């Protein structure tokens, strides 16, 4: 095969997968443009499309593929309409980040619903005979099915473009993405269009799922696999830009394919580097227009700082009591050591991780979607330090903290200049960059990770971790973790009471104002990010020692999602709330695991209900409940305080 045909084949491969990205990104982008919703569940619509298509095709026999191509998107569109109506709609007017959180919960639900119905095993979709084999065009053999994917993708993109530019619905939708309120002032009920837009986006994703299913296996992780590239496409092309989604989708498809064959060491990295570069140089993306956005409906992040009703003396007593209980827990005879050594340690470590996120999210308003980066880097650095530097546990943990803090400084330096949703996206991209990179690095154990190391409590020698057992088989390590977590909490709390913390809280309340009383907001946020990165690194290091090793799983974005869930669940902006959230999350998981395999889905459902009804988290529950019985002002009932404060007169 000549170089030219190889190149041509790669371009065609790239366009094939690129078209699937276009189908996904077009919906994501339009949904964002019109409704300001970042839909993490979009990948699940894609997967649902593939699975529903599969069932439809099986049920209808020969020619089933064509029926599936028609029916699956319609059914998924209906699901999309329901999702918009019942979960997304109640959140309009809140900060767009609540939609990210909500749709993250939906991802968990959809995943489990899919495995509940179709099971874990991968399926093979029977391609229709008409589309099998290869065709020869210009003396070049290539799979007919790929031409089909490119063709149908192009057709649908063209149809969508025509619908957007030539129809009444399209026109209103475009107008709505530029100035939502003006559309309302012309007497058009734009809210009704939201359902249509969301359903339509889900349909496009489902078409993508069905056509990709003819090319590869249908498996539970397929939504997860495409959502991140789809986001990159949308950010690259410009949030809300249809043209950007098309160009970006094809571009990413071709670049991915090309890099895989020509620069294999960059595989998985190139697109993230590209996304980071674009966000830094042109945050609005290639085709985005920052001045056209609606932007007027962004509410505040709902912190729980003033929503709980217990006074500080009571809280202190509860806290001291809890630490006391944790300190004597290992001594309780009869408690299986599994609970102490695994579950409680796990909770403590995740509590620390959630604390680190709350430090930036709840106090400085920085919603990091890639916080797993610092956790993972801390884990790797700790393990590498033990293996290559000194065997000392404490030195290694310190190295983990330091390396995470340095990485946080670099990431913070680059990303804090972009704001809001873009900051979230760029942190996600950095985390994914490291996740992909770690597979390439032999000294980091590639995909196997690093196991089999032996940290000691002394500097160079001494008893190693796990060798000293106390009553009931509980290790001393338990107390190390307990001390580290309690110490970190006290430290974080003290920082929040110090001048530094008071500036962070001012930033959360009003960045603009904080700048105008003389503080460099960017510098303060970056410092907070470094502290937070260090704490996350400590959590990661402890987790690695606890696990006995580290693997790329430590950097998987699902963990970023989980830690955000814990933070919101507990109540951000309180430091202890997210720690409580971590405990409740992991205990629920433990309990649900015993009852159902669909624990993720149930947790997702609980989380979705929390985001909608208790956005200030568990710590606001007593206040909310008290408010039910006693509707006095200040009873914590104003979950959604006045959204509109603009004065236009």
């Amino acid at each position, binding site marked *: 095969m000549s170089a030219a045909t190889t190149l041509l084949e790669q371009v065609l491969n790239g366009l094939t997968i690129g078209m699937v990205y276009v189908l996904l990104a077009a919906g994501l982008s339009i949904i964002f443009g019109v409704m300001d919703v970042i839909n993490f569940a979009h990948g699940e619509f894609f997967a649902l499309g593939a699975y529903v298509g599969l069932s439809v095709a099986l049920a209808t026999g020969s020619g089933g593929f064509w029926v599936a191509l028609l029916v699956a998107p319609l059914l998924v569109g209906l699901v999309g309409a329901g999702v918009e109506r019942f979960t997304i709609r109640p959140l309009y007017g809140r900060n767009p980040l609540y939609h990210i959180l909500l749709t993250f919960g939906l991802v968990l639900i959809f995943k489990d619903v899919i495995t509940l119905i179709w099971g874990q095993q991968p399926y093979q979709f029977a391609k229709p005979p008409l589309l099998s084999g290869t065709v020869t065009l210009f003396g070049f053999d290539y799979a007919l099915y790929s031409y089909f994917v490119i063709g149908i993708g192009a057709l649908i993109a063209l149809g969508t473009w025509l619908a957007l530019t030539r129809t009444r619905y399209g026109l209103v939708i475009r107008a709505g993405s530029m*100035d939502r309120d003006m559309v309302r002032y*012309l007497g058009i009920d734009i809210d009704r269009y939201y359902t249509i837009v969301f359903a339509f986006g889900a349909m496009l994703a489902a078409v993508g799922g069905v056509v990709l299913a003819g090319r590869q296996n249908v498996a539970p992780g397929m939504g997860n696999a495409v959502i991140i590239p789809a986001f990159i496409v949308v950010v690259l092309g410009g949030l809300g830009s249809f043209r950007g989604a098309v160009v970006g989708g094809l571009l990413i498809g071709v670049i991915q394919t090309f890099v895989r064959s020509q620069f294999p060491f960059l595989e998985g990295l190139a697109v993230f580097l590209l996304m980071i570069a674009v966000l830094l140089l042109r945050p609005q993306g290639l085709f985005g227009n920052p001045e056209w956005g609606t932007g007027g409906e962004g509410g505040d992040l709902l912190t729980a700082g003033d929503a709980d009703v217990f006074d500080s003396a009571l809280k202190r007593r509860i806290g001291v009591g809890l630490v006391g209980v944790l300190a004597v827990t290992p001594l309780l005879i009869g408690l299986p050591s599994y609970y102490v050594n695994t579950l409680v340690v796990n909770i403590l470590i995740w509590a620390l991780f959630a604390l680190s996120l709350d430090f930036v999210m709840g106090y400085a308003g920085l919603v990091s979607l890639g916080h797993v980066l610092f956790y993972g880097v801390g884990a790797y650095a700790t393990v590498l330090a033990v293996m290559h530097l000194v065997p000392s546990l404490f030195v290694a943990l310190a190295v983990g903290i330091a390396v995470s803090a340095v990485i946080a400084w670099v990431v913070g330096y680059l990303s804090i200049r972009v704001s809001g949703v873009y900051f979230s996206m760029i942190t996600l991209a950095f985390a994914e960059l490291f996740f992909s990179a770690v597979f390439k690095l032999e000294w980091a154990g590639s995909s196997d990770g690093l196991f089999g190391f032996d940290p000691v409590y002394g500097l160079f020698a001494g008893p190693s971790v796990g060798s000293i057992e106390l009553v009931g088989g509980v290790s001393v390590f338990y107390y190390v973790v307990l001390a580290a977590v309690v110490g970190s909490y006290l430290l974080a709390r003290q920082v929040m009471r110090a001048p530094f913390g008071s500036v962070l809280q001012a930033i959360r309340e009003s960045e603009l104002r904080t700048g105008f009383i003389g503080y460099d907001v960017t510098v303060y946020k970056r410092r907070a990010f470094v502290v937070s990165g260090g704490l996350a690194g400590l959590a990661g290091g402890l987790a690695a020692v606890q696990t006995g090793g580290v693997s790329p799983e430590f950097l998987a974005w699902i963990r970023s999602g989980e830690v955000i869930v814990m933070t919101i669940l507990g109540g951000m902006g309180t430091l202890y709330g997210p720690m409580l959230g971590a405990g409740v999350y992991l205990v629920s998981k433990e309990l649900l695991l015993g009852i159902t395999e669909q624990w993720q889905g149930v947790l997702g459902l609980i989380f979705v209900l929390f985001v909608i009804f208790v956005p200030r988290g568990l710590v606001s529950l007593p206040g909310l409940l008290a408010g039910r019985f006693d509707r006095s002002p200040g009873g914590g009932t104003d979950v959604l305080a006045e959204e509109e404060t603009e004065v236009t007169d």
Partner: protein
Amino acid sequence: MSDGDPLLRLDGVRAGYGETQVLDGVSLDVNRGETVALIGRNGVGKTTTLRTILGAVTPTAGTVRYDGEDVTGLGPIETVRRGVGLVPEERRVFPGLTVEENLAVGRYGGSETANRRDPEEVLETFENLGRRRRSRGTDLSGGEQQMLAIGRALVAGADLLLLDEPTEGLAPLIVDRVSELIREINEEGITVLLVEQNVAVALSLADRVYILDRGRVVFEGAPAELEANESVMERHLGVTV
């Protein structure tokens, strides 16, 4: 008063944003076929009055009656469907849509009134818009954007047109043309409620004038009465004579 009742009646309307109360009991009438000007210094509640009439702001007290019906708190979509049109402050044309498309959005909303214009008709009447029918909203000059915003409201169809600062930031020559246009619209049977900073323009167009100060109506009368009343001009408009 042709039909007896006024087309629009505000009675003791109080409204604001969050904790800021802007309107402190505004009462006013607009009769069919009139041009009424609402003037006053900045921040006294003129725009909020228009937003309350449209239903974009819900009053905390008082009523808004349109065409004999209580429309208080109905929201903009229902109010517009009954025949109220808005030309907002700063025009708010859709920046990425062409002139034709901007007008078309008006056609898909609005109200089915006899005063509803066809987009082509608007493009013909406003010949400068007709020449730029394929230009995007952002590419228009301030005057053209104002024409387009008015044209869009006409296409949406309105028996009562609310105009918020239509001459703001325009060159004097363009101010004259916009004024002329408002006069024509009114002559064709559309009732106009005009908020203006430019007192000269307001007085030249209006049949009646209301002055708003700190959320209350402090003067009501014909333009000539106001011009004769120097102390009112000075006290409430900040015009030192």
